[in-house]
């Protein structure tokens, strides 16, 4: 059924777009290439699972509880780990390499902590697992809810970034980090804020994923990769690009899983990644800088 594939692809793509937005905030504004991003997603997926199965708190209420926590976590990680690197890079100029290495270490720390607490089994829980008819296609209600949340959070974020003074500050840092201090913007504070905001988006992505999918401790790499592919497809730091590319990736994955083989979805992701790199390295919507 093509309609089923299209609808469920768009629904899946909503989550991808959301997590890619978080990563594009972290990389585009804080200039931190965060390889532990997927681990953060999985961590909050487990947190939502824990809240639901141990305390009976449903994922929506869990989301309200977890988002401030995620913001604080991101704020702390940036302050403790990234700030020294940023300061050091003012001299050496290799923040990119340093942040990649540091977050690669962080990846193993978060994964190790999760292994100790949750073990390496596949985990899932049952929440709103009933079929809903959408345009003739049957979709689980939890997926639909996740999509609605993704649209809501992504929409609020987009409006905040484009319509408010505060959002303009963030975009100014993304466009010209050297010139932003000239108009009185505290780049360091903005970067820290954007990093924490990105972590918050990762957490909301994690909660959504936990609602409709089984997950394991070692799955983080896959989500980091998917988010990165979407970010690069949409152009680094480009929120709208991330949105369109995320939906596109969701569609492609669902079509590959439906018509070719579910085991080849990651290969399809990579194929897209390769062709984007070869054809338009600046992203589908980016302008070539060379």
């Amino acid at each position, binding site marked *: 059924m093509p309609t089923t594939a299209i609808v469920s692809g768009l629904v899946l793509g909503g989550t991808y777009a959301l997590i890619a937005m978080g990563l594009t905030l972290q990389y585009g504004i804080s200039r931190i290439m965060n390889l532990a991003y997927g681990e953060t997603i999985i961590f909050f997926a487990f947190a939502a699972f824990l809240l639901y199965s141990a305390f009976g708190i449903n994922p929506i209420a869990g989301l309200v509880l977890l988002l401030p926590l995620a913001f604080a976590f991101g704020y702390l990680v940036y302050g403790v780990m990234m700030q020294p690197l940023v300061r050091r890079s003012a001299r050496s100029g290799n923040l990119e390499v340093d942040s990649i290495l540091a977050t690669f270490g962080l990846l193993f720390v978060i994964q190790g902590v999760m292994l100790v607490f949750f073990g390496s089994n596949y985990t899932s829980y049952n929440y709103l697992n009933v079929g809903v008819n959408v345009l003739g296609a049957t979709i689980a209600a939890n997926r639909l809810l996740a999509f609605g949340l993704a649209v809501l959070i992504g929409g609020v974020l987009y409006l905040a970034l484009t319509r408010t003074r505060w959002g303009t500050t963030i975009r100014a840092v993304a466009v010209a980090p050297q010139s932003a201090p000239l108009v009185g913007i505290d780049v360091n504070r903005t970067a820290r804020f954007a990093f924490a905001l990105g972590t918050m988006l990762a957490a909301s992505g994690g909660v959504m994923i936990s609602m409709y999918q089984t997950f394991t401790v070692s799955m983080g790499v896959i989500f980091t990769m998917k988010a990165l592919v979407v970010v690069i497809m949409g152009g680094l730091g480009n929120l709208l690009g991330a949105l369109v590319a995320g939906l596109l990736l969701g569609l492609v994955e669902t079509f590959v899983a439906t018509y070719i083989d579910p*085991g080849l979805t990651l290969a399809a992701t990579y194929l897209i990644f390769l062709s984007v790199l070869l054809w338009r390295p600046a992203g589908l919507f980016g302008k070539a800088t060379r």
Partner: protein
Amino acid sequence: MVRALLAVIFFAGALAALAWLPTQFGAYGVGLLLGMTGYVTLASAWALFSGPTRYVSLATVAFFGIGAYTVAVLSETLPYPLILLVAAAVGLCVALVVGLATLRLAGVYFVIFTFGLAELIRQLVTWYEVNITGTLGRYIFLPISGEQIYWQLLALAAVTIGLGWWIGRSRIGLALKVIGDDEVVAAHVGINIARVKLALFAVSATIITLVGAIQAPRWTYVEPSIVFNPTISFLTLIMALLGGANRLWGPLLGAVPLFLLFEWLSANFPNHYSIILGLLFIAIVFVMPQGVLAMVERGWSRVGQRGRKAEPAGTEAAQ
């Protein structure tokens, strides 16, 4: 000339001593030596490319796994030396594809691509095994003892470090140093950046593939999740960084103590292994991003400067 000759004699002697070592240890000692030599080779091969260019490759285990899996697939159909050749060729081809696609672009694309490469290859192999051949695991029955594996790895390590030494003195090494310092300058003095990077990445990846292929008979049973274990990439990286990826002997210096530490950790703290690893790695990135050797050198030069300043002015005038 005499110095070079002495150095050659010294290294030949050291190699001979290392090759003789396994006769003195039991099976456990040989296993330890073998693993250590494997990681020395991996870290040295990694540093061959990533050290001078500062392109962090996270795909070590992708190539390692390709090597091991090629041996597993072909172990019953081809003679052993031929299998190694085929494995090296497969590794080389994958390296060329990855390199051609990503090395022309900014470094971050390369890192991202290599980051997911191991996972991609693992899933592809799993898919192929499940859907085409119908089995997931494979057995390797090759009549190769631990000592023989160790000797092969030792030879490969010697070749890798020798290659590093040769590259450091050759034209391509000079070109690499320029690229590492400033790509724009490198392009302006007429260095074909992409070609130099690609060549070196291919060499480094081929060596890593061979390490995987040589170590494969140790396992007897091989499965994608065993040979594509991301910890291998991580360990290689941390070893090379600790020693100093820009120094010829740096990776070796980092690999030996860290390998022993990891052995001890995995025996005593199996559950908290990756947390300790991650924290250690972050500490290394923070405290000595250039590695131990660079830090020691800087320390020495600081001591030397202080000593010179402390000397009375008269001695300087006399000089």
